[in-house]
Every structure is written in structure tokens, then in C-alpha cells.
């Protein structure tokens, strides 16, 4: 395939012929995103939330989190007993799932949401209230209880929920083909 001495005319003709071949029948692999979005496999590492019931507050996830995105909050549960629950800052999180894997009671509810963006800091650091000063420590915020309420056991909202969900399939000729789960 890689001989060095190639004659130039054949090279030019080959290049133009290949160009025309792909111009004539373009096997596009484009996903037109805002209208369609991909149904990723269930082991995809997307946004996640803590399950309040199963979490035992051992703060192993905070120790292992490489970017220190998790901070443990001192809360009191319904029965008045003290409990510690993790709070995740999406501005630091790198989605490596070390916390999900190290959790002794598997207390994280994972999801396949992968395309969230935010207009301002207040949207991802805290649900309400002004953006926090660096270095962030949720425990020092007065309203961290409400923040936690709006965070645990809440399935992250999928921004592309409205679009058509397609499933990517490998194809010998086109590389990746998208099939709508409905039709064949």
C-alpha cells in the first residue's frame, strides 16, 4: 500500500476520483444533535445523585474524590438524629466515578445525562443564593440544608429529553449508523 515511487498522474486521478466517490454517495455519520440525541448505554458515567436512605455518611467518597468536588454536610434527619451526607459541586466534578465505586453501600443513583450546561455559577454550585467564594465549602453556607434537599434523590434533568432518542450501531460501510428505537 505504501510504495514510495508513485506516478503523479495516477495520484491526481485517484485523489479526485475518491473525492467524487464520497461526493456522490456521502455516508454521513452525523447526529443532528438538537433534534436527535443518543441513548447511551446504561454503564455511561453521566450526572448522578446521592440516595439519602442508603447513604451511611462514611465520607469515603469525599476522601477518594480526586478534584475534591464532594463536601460532607452536617444535617439532622427526620428523627432528629445527626447525619452526614455528600454534596457534589459540578464545577469541579470530573465524572471518574471513583466515589460511586468506593461507596460501601452503593448509595449513588447514576444516570446517562451527559450534556448539561449552565448560564451562571448559581445554577450548578447552589440551587439559590449567590455564587460561593473560592475555596468552596458548602458547610459554611447558611442555607446548605435546602441545597441538600434539592440535590439528593433527584434524577438530573436531561436537557435533550425532548429530542428524538436514537441508538448508535456500528456498520461496516458507514462506521456508525443511528437507529430509532421505534422503527427497524
Amino acid at each position, binding site marked *: *500500500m*505504501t510504495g514510495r515511487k508513485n506516478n503523479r498522474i495516477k495520484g491526481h486521478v485517484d485523489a479526485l476520483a*475518491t473525492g467524487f466517490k464520497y461526493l456522490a454517495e456521502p455516508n454521513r*455519520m452525523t447526529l443532528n444533535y438538537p433534534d436527535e440525541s443518543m441513548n447511551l448505554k446504561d*454503564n455511561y458515567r453521566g450526572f448522578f445523585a446521592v440516595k439519602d436512605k442508603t447513604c451511611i455518611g462514611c465520607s469515603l467518597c469525599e476522601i*477518594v474524590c480526586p478534584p475534591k468536588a464532594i463536601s460532607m454536610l452536617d444535617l439532622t434527619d427526620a428523627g432528629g438524629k445527626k447525619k452526614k451526607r455528600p454534596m457534589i459541586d459540578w464545577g469541579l466534578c470530573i465524572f471518574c466515578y471513583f466515589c460511586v*465505586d468506593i461507596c460501601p453501600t*452503593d448509595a449513588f443513583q447514576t444516570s446517562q445525562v451527559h450534556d448539561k450546561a449552565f448560564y451562571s455559577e448559581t445554577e450548578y454550585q447552589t440551587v439559590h443564593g449567590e455564587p460561593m467564594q473560592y475555596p468552596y465549602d458548602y458547610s459554611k453556607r447558611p442555607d446548605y440544608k435546602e441545597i441538600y434537599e434539592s440535590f439528593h434523590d433527584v434524577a438530573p434533568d436531561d436537557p435533550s429529553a425532548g429530542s428524538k432518542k436514537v441508538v448508535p450501531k456500528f456498520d461496516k460501510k458507514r462506521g456508525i449508523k443511528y437507529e430509532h428505537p421505534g422503527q427497524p
Partner: protein
Amino acid sequence: MSAPQDRTATANLTYDELAGLKADRELVLLIGPAHPGSGHMKIKVWMDGDIIQRVDPDIGFVHRTTEKLSENRLYIKAIPIVERVMLPDTINANLAYVIALERLLGIEPTPRAQYLRTLTSEINRITSHLYGIGLYGIFLGSSTVYMWAFADREPLIDLIEEISGARITYSYIIPGGVRWDLPAGFKERAETVLQYMEARLKDYGKIWVRNPVVMDRTEGVGVVSKSDAIRLGITGPNLRASGVDYDTRRAKPYAAYPNLDFEVPTFSEGDCYARLLQRVEEIEQSIRIIRQVLKDIPDGRIISDDIYSKMNPLQKRMYEMKHRVMFPAYMASMRPAAGRSTASVEAGRGEIFFYLVSNGDKVPFRFRWVTPSFLNLPFFTHVMVGQHLADLPAIYGSSDYFPPEADR
């Protein structure tokens, strides 16, 4: 802006007086970080007309101090850091660090884990080569090759995404083995992707590798002889393209490479065209290796017994049911015995070298690593001198230099 020099001063000089004013003929070009042909670095180029006199690469624009950070964090936390530096080739970076850490801890991964590591490392080598060919194309002006290379990367990235669940930063390899097993039906899907890749390589040959304009731009440009390649210490496909038959997978075997048979292709010319051919050959070799690995991958556990025994019952049940490796608390409090270890892995761009020192603490005492692109820096200072300005992107693209990897 400097005041416009006094143009009349040189107006009435004769030609040879002008030639005498060498400094006046020189033009210093700052090909800075915001330049389509420079990547994340600033290249200071002294030019006389169209010929490059001297090049001084000003790197460090993406120096994210990985060594200092890793020396103040737990051993397990260095895996994501090491990956973020070599983003087009994350599995090999992760593999290099974990081999050095396993030698420090004295843990042996299981055979199946070794094969899984080789499989993902080879798939990532192909995506890294395709990333290099894509950038090489855009540097020479052909946006089609850039688009084709990034299109052909996608099926391979999806293959590893099926195994590990992330698109590029997998953090897939941990001390003692790997984190996930092959999903069902993976072998057939992988075979389709490999056949797609082989069919596409033929089209690359027609529109790019044997394109006369490409051959004019790359043949005889940036020649690195065999002795120069060794003297300058460049690594990876650039070294093999100059005729040096050295491949870390063969010289310092690791993972499942000892019991795989693959050739190490070499070319002798050492110019930009040879480096391009070298990368295409290595993609074919990697496809061969992947087929072998998929054919004779042994069954069994994917995490070594030292780690498996430390898991709590729920995690063990989770592993038996869904073959998903959960971390025991030991992972967050690893304390390797005091000692030192080195490791070398052949990444897509060349040899990664690791040197770990631990004094029994939870954080490494000395964390030293050298990435292949840092060793490929002499391409700028020695190989580009004397070439035309238009050869700078040609040599830069052919050396597959990735600035975040060089700055660490």
C-alpha cells in the same frame, strides 16, 4: 507599537550593503498560542526571507504541575491527573502509572486483566494515531483528512466507551486489574469496526498518502538520519521512521505483549513522508494485535485477589452479579512499602517513563514522569532549521507533538 523605523536610512544603500545588514533582513515571527498552526505553544522563529534560521519553542502554556499535585495527593488520585495530560491516548498513560504503582505495591494483575489492558491500549493507540494524522492534515491544509481522521476515531472511541462508560477519560486501569469487563457481543462489534477501519485505510491511501501534492510537501522535508534520531533522543513512530528498530513493547515487555506476535515496522528515510507512512503501518499492526487479543483472551477474574479479598460482602456480590469492580476502602488508603520503581510503556507518540519513590506515606514521596512529546522537542530546535516557513507546520504535524503532554 514601535514607531515606524526610519525607512529612508536603508533606501539609498547598495544591494551588498543591504546584505551586510543581516540583522535588518531577519524577521522574527511569533507563532503564538492563538495561531492555527501552533497548537498550545508559542514558537519564536527567526527567518531570513522564507528560510528558518532558528526556532525557540516557548512551551509551558499548559504546564499544569502534575508532579507537584501528585506528590500531595493519594496514590489513586494520580490516575485521573495522568490521564488529563495525555488526552488523545489516556489508556497508555494510565497503564504506565499503574504498572509503576503495582511494582511498588508488589501486586500482580490477573491474566484476563492483562489482555484487557492490551486490548484497550491498542484501540487507544489507533485513535491517537488518527488524532495525529488529522492534525497533520489540517496543518498541510487538507481539512478532508482532518474530518476523515476524526470520523474514523468515533467508532473506536465508542468501542472503549462500551467497556468503560466514558468517552475519552476512562480511568479504566486500577492497581490489581481493570474496573469493567467486556460487555456481551463485544467481539462481533469490534470485528465490524476493524473491517470498517481497514476499508477506510485504503481510501486514506488514495486521497492523502499517495496524493502528489502531499508527497511534494513532505518528501525530503525534515529529514532525521538514524544517528541523529538516536543523538537527539526522539521517540515513538518518529524514531522508527528513521530506521531505529526500538519499540518499548518489545524491549521492555509489559501487559500481554510477551505472548503476542506482532512486527515493529520501520522506515529508513526519516522524512515527514516516512513518519506518515510509519503511522499508517502501525495502525495496521494494532488492528492485527487487537484481533489476536480478542481471539485468545483467557476467562477468569479481572481484579487480583489482593484487592478482591479486601472488598466488603456487598461489593463482592456486586462483582459476581454484574462483573463491576467496586473499590475497597483500601484503595483510598494505600501505603506502599518504602521503595522505588520505574516503568516504561509504549504510548501512541512514544515511550512514557515513570519513576515513583515512596517512603511508606499515603502520598508518593517523588512522582516523576516524562512524556513522549517532551522528548520530541528537538524536532523544533534541530530539525526545522534551514527549512521553509511552510515546512514548520509540516514537520510539527509529522512529529505528532501534543503540547499539553509535553508541558505535563
